[in-house]
């Protein structure tokens, strides 16, 4: 079915109001969803490169490169008085970029009459970013301060340690911000190589959501992106696989602090696995709302101030982690045993139909609210693009409806086992505020 009348695009498919096109000259993927609720539109370019594409010596390079992408490009730069931040913030745009394991995304939320400017800027920096060494020097210390701010948080440090302990070969071993010495020493040349390897239209998805007209949008995308050819090389695959874990692992972080944290992680399958949907519901059953299991067994007993579950689907294998932020005088072991006890109960007895039904209702509402506003929708869609299939976002609710209590018991038995676990404690050494 030809859904467009603009030459140069091939209509690919449609799902829940989102249309996918391919730019025939360079294989750029385009996703369009009109929503005229507010006079606002979000433009986003997602590159299929993240910290999973890094190795020792250049961990954090994807993120550092993302910072340098704001330093100027052929048509938008300080020298000509058209710096990216200034151009976009002067029209009231909300702009930023983020980097994570599997992707890097650049986005602009703009008053809809300014959509063209956002498209022009992203097209220009896709292939014409300056990436100068004189810009990397001051930006390195900026990024290092971002790293240092993260290191201030005991939770952030514990989380890095749990991932580094659980994943030894696979690059999910290191966090997206990278190791400090790599941030300090990676060369500009290495960053340019990274850019020239991954920043191509055939390795990117451009998304527009909000108050715009589809045909006009395609005309604008053609106007600005058509000058880019597809890469003349195959974008390299990341082929490292994590060897099978053969026993439980533990890690402890101990330094000045006020209250303990317990984290228990278990490896999970890749994000596009059918089993992901059961994990998403299980985390709600365990931790979302006052009726959740951990709220009753930990929070309502005054043992922790809060519980946080980390269960994001990634392109490769992930982690199902429960974090408990302990109240003063609570022993780490006490809470660890309760968490493992709940897992054991699910392994042996499963979950009730009532729990599952509630978790599905919570999910339906979460998904509905993920469409409240063009940026919210783009942000949710971005994570689906990252794991390799944007329709993961649009079909999520339907797939959730198919999950049964047996499915949840099955994944618990398969994955929430001691041999696949990594447990981390933050143990504070008290010194206090002077």
């Amino acid at each position, binding site marked *: 079915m030809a859904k467009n009348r603009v030459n140069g695009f091939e209509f690919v498919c449609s799902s829940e109001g989102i249309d996918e096109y391919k730019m025939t000259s360079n294989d750029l993927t385009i996703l369009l969803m009109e929503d005229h609720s507010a006079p606002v539109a979000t433009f986003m370019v997602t590159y299929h490169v993240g910290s999973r594409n890094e190795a020792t010596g250049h961990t954090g390079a994807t993120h550092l490169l993302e910072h340098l992408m704001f330093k100027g490009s052929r048509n938008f730069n300080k020298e000509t008085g058209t710096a990216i931040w200034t151009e976009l913030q002067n029209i*009231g745009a909300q702009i930023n970029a983020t980097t994570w394991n599997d992707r890097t995304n650049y986005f602009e939320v703009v008053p809809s009459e300014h959509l063209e400017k956002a498209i022009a800027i992203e097209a220009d920096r896709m292939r014409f970013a300056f990436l100068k060494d004189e810009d990397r020097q001051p930006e390195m*210390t900026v990024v290092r301060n971002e790293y240092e701010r993260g290191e201030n948080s005991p939770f952030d440090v514990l989380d890095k340690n749990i991932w580094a302990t659980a994943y030894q070969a696979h690059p999910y071993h290191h966090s997206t911000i990278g190791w400090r010495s790599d941030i300090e020493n990676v060369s500009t040349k290495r960053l340019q190589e990274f850019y020239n390897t991954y920043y191509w239209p055939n390795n990117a998805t451009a998304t527009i959501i909000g108050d715009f007209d589809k045909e006009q949008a395609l005309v604008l995308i053609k106007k600005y992106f058509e000058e880019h050819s597809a890469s003349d090389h195959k974008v390299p695959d990341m082929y490292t696989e994590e060897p099978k874990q053969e026993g439980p692992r533990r890690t402890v972080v101990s330094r000045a602090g006020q209250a303990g944290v317990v984290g228990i992680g278990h490896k999970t399958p890749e994000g596009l696995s059918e089993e992901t949907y059961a994990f998403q519901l299980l985390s709600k059953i365990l931790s979302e709302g006052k009726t959740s299991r951990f709220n009753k067994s930990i929070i309502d007993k*005054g043992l922790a101030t809060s519980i946080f579950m980390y269960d994001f689907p990634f392109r490769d294998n992930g982690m199902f982690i429960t974090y408990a932020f302990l109240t003063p005088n609570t022993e780490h072991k006490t809470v660890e045993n309760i968490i493992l006890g709940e897992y054991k109960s699910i392994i042996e007895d499963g979950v009730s139909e009532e729990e599952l039904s509630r978790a599905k209702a919570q999910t339906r509402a979460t998904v509905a609210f993920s*469409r409240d506003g063009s940026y919210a929708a783009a942000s949710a869609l971005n994570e689906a693009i990252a794991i390799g299939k944007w329709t993961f976002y649009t079909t999520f609710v339907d797939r959730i409806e198919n999950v049964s209590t047996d499915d949840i018991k099955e994944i618990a038995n398969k994955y929430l086992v001691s041999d696949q676990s990594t447990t981390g404690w933050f143990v504070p050494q008290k010194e206090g505020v002077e």
Partner: protein
Amino acid sequence: MGFFKDQVQTKEPVPGFTSYVMSTSVKDVITFAGSFVGGTVFSPAGNQKIASLTAAMLDKGTKSKDKYVISDMLESAGAELSFSSTRHHVQFAGHCLKNDLETVIKLLGEQLQTPAFPGKELKILKTRLIGNLERTKEDTKKQALIGFLRNLYPENHPNHRLTTDKAIDQILGTGMKDISTFHQKIYGPGNLNFAIVGDVISDKVNDLIYEVFHGWDEKNIKLETNGLNAFPVEKKEEQIHIPDKTSADMYLGQSVGIDRDHEDYYPLMMAIYILGGNFSARLMQNVRDKQGLTYGIGSSIGGVSFGNDGYWSTWGTFAPDLLDAGKEATMEQVSDWYNNGATLQELENKKTTLTGSFKVGMDSTGGLTAKILSNAEKNRSVEYLDQYPEIIRGITLKQVNNAIKHYIDPKKLTLVIAGTIDKASWT
């Protein structure tokens, strides 16, 4: 004619309870938020925490439903409902799907009007809140802000902040009687504002409000300033040592002596925005982008609502060994801004930034709800929201530069830094 005037329907379905209903084309989704006067400034003398504990106890059960029954009703619908206390207001907020609105509003009414305040829940709540507060002792940003505001304002001024230990003591000293008395005295319509946006119909919402809230005793608590002003502006410095931190937080600024209704508020706000309101403002452009000394630095005006004399603050983070350079670079920008003022180009750029970002803020039901409620809390008509872009466009360069000279004194700044600081090198 105006976006908000045309789309927001205002009504008083119950005396002292004003609704602001905005129907948008979003499908199924509804967001709401409301508030009434009764925040921490209304806590009995000597214990600010009574107000916040009262709000935090609202979701622990009502006279006819325990907390699990309430939670089950909300969670089964995927709805959310929360309560909190600000300096001046009791606030509630929630979202739900269209078909669940009646259930959620009825629960809201029950929780506000007939809370059970069970004793064992207070004990657990206090343990958790104290745990959270203990954890903030290692938070460099929070400790720097507390120190900064304590240096600017005397005890009992709404902009003053308790030390973390004092806050813990007040939580420990709060009993159930304090909470039920506060609830009885403060909670009720009178100046209650309720904003609701999304897939809603005004008449249905107002009928529901009448059904749920009519008969709730009107309280009509008035917002009045307590006559306390900021300390006289003078140069002060304080260091707060927190061990094992790789980044320090810095607050720099002073009180400005005016509130949001003062004629100089918008020119001064604009002046401060030009200094550090966003990434393309002077501080981020120079201290971060050019010199690479920080991940983040910004400047804003705060504490100006409801008749309070507010303050200007600049906040930034620095590695301990770049702290001196960061402070110096920040002061260079402040001095240049003070001595030479803003330029016409900067003013024009920031006008389009603020009017454009106002529009971008309408992107979601949450953004619209927040704008409508915040405006109503200030006793402003809905039309004011439509006038806001014109107010911004009307600010002149002369007003901006006069405001800098009149309200800022760079020789009398308060500087507070929290982190792992080498005291020997402190200058």
